[in-house]
């Protein structure tokens, strides 16, 4: 028994790992007298050799699939080991891992077996069993299977914190080519249903105290980058629409890995487009936390992201007329747009300048990356650098400077901007007293 479950876990984790979403954030679920809770910022419990966070037990219920999507390892024409877990097996694994503090919860997806409803029902059953029989209040993220009946999706939403439907291929035409058995409407239908469900839940919650939760951590989706020829601008404007109109919580970007290199519909890539993927995440970050609009990041004349510099720096260089920013006067929004100043530093600047005029020395101590920021700010004694620069010259100047730095520091280009959003652990001081 142990051997078989071990074997199944290997196969089903291998099959699930290309879905990049792993966040356990977005919902605060209290523990109501059982096991577990969910914290709004989420927690990463481990990091794999690829540097990615393990927050959730991410597995497929089964990697058998009746479909044959070109970009997927689990497509039916691939000859690879297959396995299926029972509802009880997934439940036991989740609880066993959770009690040992290995994970924040479960992210369960599945290949399509028999039909959409049959597959969706099994996912829903796992969530229901966890919530009702195990009295489990940890995080649950379920995949909503396109084509499943609205009733099943509704059921799933009552037990899950998050639901996601993956779009995968950013344009309908390319999706037709790579996954002829799928279409946009079947993806958008459950997405719309979930959006309306969440809206309804939010309104009801305002009126009544006891409203049944519906997908309280919202929905997300994934886009594969580099399997089809869409431009970054197409991808970002799709993402922006998903945030604004579909009210999605997260859009994930997955650099295409050549898993099925025999399929001639796919580009022959030697290495996954990781830099491009990273630039997309940075742009996404700018839209969600830095109040940028998609069309400020890219335009039809400039449809691809600059791979050599990050999108915030690229924006500043394209818009030199908006700089330099006066650190002691400018409003928060504008300070946030300065390359080298993150959310944390921007807040500290606004707080600290009430007491005295800030100098470049203060900024440095607060944590501003002056090497970057110096071209875009003025403060007490620092003269503006930006006026005299030609955008092209400035761009290559900064690249040159940072490259000599990277050569020393190794490859740090791939790490995202590091603004940690630390969990707020509020505690009563009385809990802290040792006696």
């Amino acid at each position, binding site marked *: 028994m142990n051997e078989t479950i*071990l074997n199944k876990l*290997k196969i089903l*984790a291998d099959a699930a*790992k290309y879905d990049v979403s792993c966040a356990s954030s977005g919902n605060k679920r*209290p*523990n109501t*007298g059982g*096991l*577990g*809770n969910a914290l709004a910022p989420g*927690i*990463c*419990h*481990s*990091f*794999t*050799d*690829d*540097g990615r966070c*393990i927050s959730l037990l*991410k597995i497929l219920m089964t990697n058998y699939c009746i479909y044959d999507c070109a970009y997927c390892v689990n497509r039916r024409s691939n000859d690879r080991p297959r396995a299926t877990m029972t509802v009880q097996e997934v439940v036991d*694994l989740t609880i*066993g*891992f959770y*009690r*040992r*503090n290995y994970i924040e919860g479960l992210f369960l997806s599945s290949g399509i077996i028999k039909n959409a409803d049959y597959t969706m029902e099994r996912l829903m059953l796992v969530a229901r069993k966890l919530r009702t029989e195990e009295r489990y209040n940890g995080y649950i993220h379920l995949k909503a299977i396109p084509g499943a009946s609205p009733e099943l999706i509704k059921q799933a939403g009552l037990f899950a914190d998050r639901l996601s439907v993956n779009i995968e291929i950013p344009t309908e035409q390319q999706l037709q080519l790579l996954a002829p058995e799928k279409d946009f409407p079947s993806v958008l239908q459950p997405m719309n249903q979930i959006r309306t469900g969440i809206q309804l839940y939010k309104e009801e919650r305002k009126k009544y105290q006891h409203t049944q939760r519906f997908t309280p951590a919202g929905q997300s989706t994934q886009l594969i980058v580099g399997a089809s020829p869409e431009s970054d601008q197409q991808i970002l404007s799709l993402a922006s629409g998903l945030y604004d109109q579909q009210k999605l919580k997260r859009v994930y970007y997955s650099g295409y*890995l050549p898993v099925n290199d025999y399929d001639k519909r796919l580009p022959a890539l030697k*290495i*996954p487009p*990781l830099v491009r993927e990273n630039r997309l995440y940075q742009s996404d970050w700018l839209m969600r936390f830095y109040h940028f609009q998609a069309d400020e990041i890219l335009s039809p004349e400039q449809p691809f992201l600059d791979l050599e510099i990050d999108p915030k720096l690229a924006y500043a260089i394209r818009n030199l007329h908006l700089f330099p920013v006066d650190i002691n006067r400018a409003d928060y929004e504008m300070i946030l747009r300065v390359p080298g100043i993150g959310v944390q530093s921007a*807040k*500290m600047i606004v*707080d*600290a300048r*009430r*007491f*005295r005029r*800030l100098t470049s020395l*203060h900024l440095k*101590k*607060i944590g501003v990356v002056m090497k970057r920021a110096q071209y875009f700010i003025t403060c007490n004694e620092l003269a503006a650098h930006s006026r005299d620069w030609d955008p092209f010259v400035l761009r290559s100047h900064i690249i040159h400077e940072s490259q000599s730095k990277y050569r020393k520091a*190794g*490859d*740090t280009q791939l*790490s995202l901007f590091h603004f*940690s959003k*630390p*969990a707020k*652990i*509020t*505690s*009563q*001081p*009385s*809990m*802290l*007293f*040792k*006696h």
Partner: protein
Amino acid sequence: MAIILYDGTFAGFMTTIFECYAQKLEPTNICKEDSFQESLFSEHIQIVTDLEKSQRVWNGLQQKLHPRNRELPVLTFLSEEDGIEMRLYRFIKRVFNSRQRIDTDYADPDVLTLKKIERVVMRESMRILQFVRFQQTIDDIYFAPIEPQFDVLPYTLKHFKNRFADQKWLIYDVKRDYGFFYDLDQVTEMTLNEKNFSIHDGKLADNITQEDEATYQSLWKSYFKHINIEERKNLKLQRQHMPHRYWKFLTEKN
């Protein structure tokens, strides 16, 4: 002018602040009583920890601090940094004595230093939530050894109590030789006289380990290996998020 001794707890430190105001003391140093070296000429005052007084100081502070800095006094205190008491004492005095809020004056070296210490301690306490790994004993207690850089375990108890409300657990700070035990009702501090676990990898002795435990450990290890994407290997990034010093007690890394 005097050296003040207190019991080393945060409540003790808060009481110290209280007494400084009440008795108009001007300490030259504030020391934990068990690390204080008596010398012939030093005059010292012993503070008796008083929960009520300490609570009053805490409440007073809460009203004078920016919402973002409400936890700063306790977090920086837990850093155990040399001289942290005096630094905090000066800061708290300034907070109480000025009519305006001064705790966001980050261009001031004392304030900025405290803010930086807070950030580091906060991260360490976050890492306890991330990297604690429980093993189940035959008496159904979930046991986890840890070795945090700062004395942050007390700060994380509320989290573990909420989350693992229906299982007994014991989290043990091996470095400071004390821990907390939750018995399904209360959390109590305790020290283990006999250590039934390896101090090298934290493994419980076989004879007190629950039957299923080994299975779950190998399942987790195997999951850890198979969820990795080889083509994206980035050990540097891994270490940045999960520094090497935590690996010792991580099931998946042993």
